């Protein structure tokens, strides 16, 4: 299969992107300024991310669709207001996470943003689970552009009026160049920001206008350091089929209403884990000094017993030090627990810490 290119490919080239193949797409890992500068620019100003490789799944339907989707997702979709978004997961019957996603209620049904590497499988799974009752479109005609960082609201508002009135985790249709674009106030960096769903033919023009207003393109490299500092999970690393939302410490995303009814896929396991606890759980890990513990690094307790594994680890440019997250046996998951990380055959001290490593308050109201 040929590697796909997004509609911003030419723009990436113009901005001297270094490309990497990711989930079948040629994606920019970084531009000429490098990951650290791109990361800091996003934290201090505004960064633009091409995330067009992600799946934009539209499912069309009414009340019956809501009921059917509630059998799949652990969400109170009946009470989800128009244009409001929720973070959720697609689980298997053992509550293993097949994908994590953002679902938004739109007038005609739902828009679900899926991970690039999972989107085609998700489409088939959902189609089967919904018995092909509803029209489903995994839209390849739309690009997805994220703009993140403290100046993003002002910059995007100069191009698309009134967008700054959106609340966090909600969206709406706006016009750009007389084309309908769907914008949500959300993101994956720990900063205030937006994700813009726009027809492919207009994505380049929109992005160039945002750059003109002072934002800069940021690659997948900095996207990874930004999301890790913000304590956000990356599917395929921090989340996979061998981990449940309770183990992933994401129970906040499961509706309490729905747990009491317990009628969604994987609910038996979820309820059992919520009542009896779990054996392993996702935690933040802060290595002492500068040592970087990457994915698959083994974690040991003070008696040198293997108690877990790092699932993501890098150097956090804003934290100005190493950051990591991983899974440890539950009894070692308390904040400030001393652990050891095995890097290149040597053991280095680290401690369990709360997430995120970096916190900025999201914009809740209009500003």
């Amino acid at each position, binding site marked *: 299969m040929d590697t796909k290119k997004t509609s911003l490919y030419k723009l990436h080239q113009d901005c001297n992107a270094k490309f990497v193949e990711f989930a079948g797409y040629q994606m920019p890992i970084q531009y000429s300024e490098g990951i*650290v500068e791109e990361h800091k620019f996003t934290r201090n100003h505004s960064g633009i991310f091409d995330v067009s490789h992600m799946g934009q799944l539209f499912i069309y339907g009414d009340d019956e669709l809501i009921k059917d989707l509630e059998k799949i997702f652990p969400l109170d979709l009946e009470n989800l207001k128009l244009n409001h978004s929720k973070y959720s997961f697609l689980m298997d019957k053992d509550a293993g996470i097949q994908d994590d996603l953002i679902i938004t209620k739109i007038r005609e049904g739902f828009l679900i943003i899926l991970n690039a590497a999972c989107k085609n499988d998700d489409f088939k799974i959902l189609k089967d689970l919904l018995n092909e009752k509803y029209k489903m479109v995994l839209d390849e005609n739309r690009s997805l552009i994220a703009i993140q960082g403290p100046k993003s609201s002002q910059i995007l508002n100069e191009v698309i009026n009134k967008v700054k009135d959106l609340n966090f985790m909600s969206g709406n249709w706006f016009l750009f160049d007389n084309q309908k674009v769907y914008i949500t106030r959300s993101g994956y960096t720990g900063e205030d920001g937006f994700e813009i769903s726009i027809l492919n033919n207009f994505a380049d023009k929109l992005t160039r206008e945002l750059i003109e207003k002072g934002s800069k393109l940021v690659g997948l490299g900095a996207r990874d350091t930004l999301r890790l500092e913000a304590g956000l999970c990356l599917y395929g690393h921090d989340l996979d089929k061998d981990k449940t939302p309770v183990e992933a410490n994401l129970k906040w995303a499961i509706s309490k209403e729905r747990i009491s009814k317990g009628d969604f896929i994987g609910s038996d396991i979820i309820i059992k884990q919520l009542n009896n606890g779990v054996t392993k759980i996702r935690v933040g890990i802060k290595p002492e000094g*500068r040592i970087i513990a990457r994915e698959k690094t083994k974690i040991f307790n003070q008696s040198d017993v293997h108690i877990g594994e790092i699932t993501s680890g*890098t150097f956090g*440019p804003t934290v100005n030090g190493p950051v990591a997250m991983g899974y440890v046996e539950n009894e070692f998951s308390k904040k400030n627990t001393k652990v050891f990380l095995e890097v290149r055959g040597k053991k280095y001290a680290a401690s369990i810490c709360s997430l995120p490593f970096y916190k900025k308050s999201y914009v809740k109201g209009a500003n």
Partner: protein
Amino acid sequence: MTEVKYSKEHEWIKLEGDVATIGITKHATEMLGDIVFAELPEKGSSVEKDGTAGVVESTKAASDVYTPVSGEVVDTNQAIVDDPSKINQDPENSAWFFKLKIKDVSEMESLMNKEDYDKFAKENA
């Protein structure tokens, strides 16, 4: 006159008397991106030609640093451990990695001169 030589693993080596100063090339730093961690060999330890003698890490990945010649480590550059970004700023000068008292000067012969290395680096970019 001391000539700087280069290895296929993108290290540079400058020999003065029987002490060689070793670092990584500008080309290497460009391929690695922002360096955020450096680990050096222990002073007094012995290293063997083409063996690992340190580690550098960018935000993306870790890479070994090799020694192009054998010898005993007589000095290391703590400044790049404390601030690894110095390696990106001045890789072929102040951001040297370690100094070796070399064992066998003939090991220098198989290394490249600047012109050959630049050509090699261009082909392997």
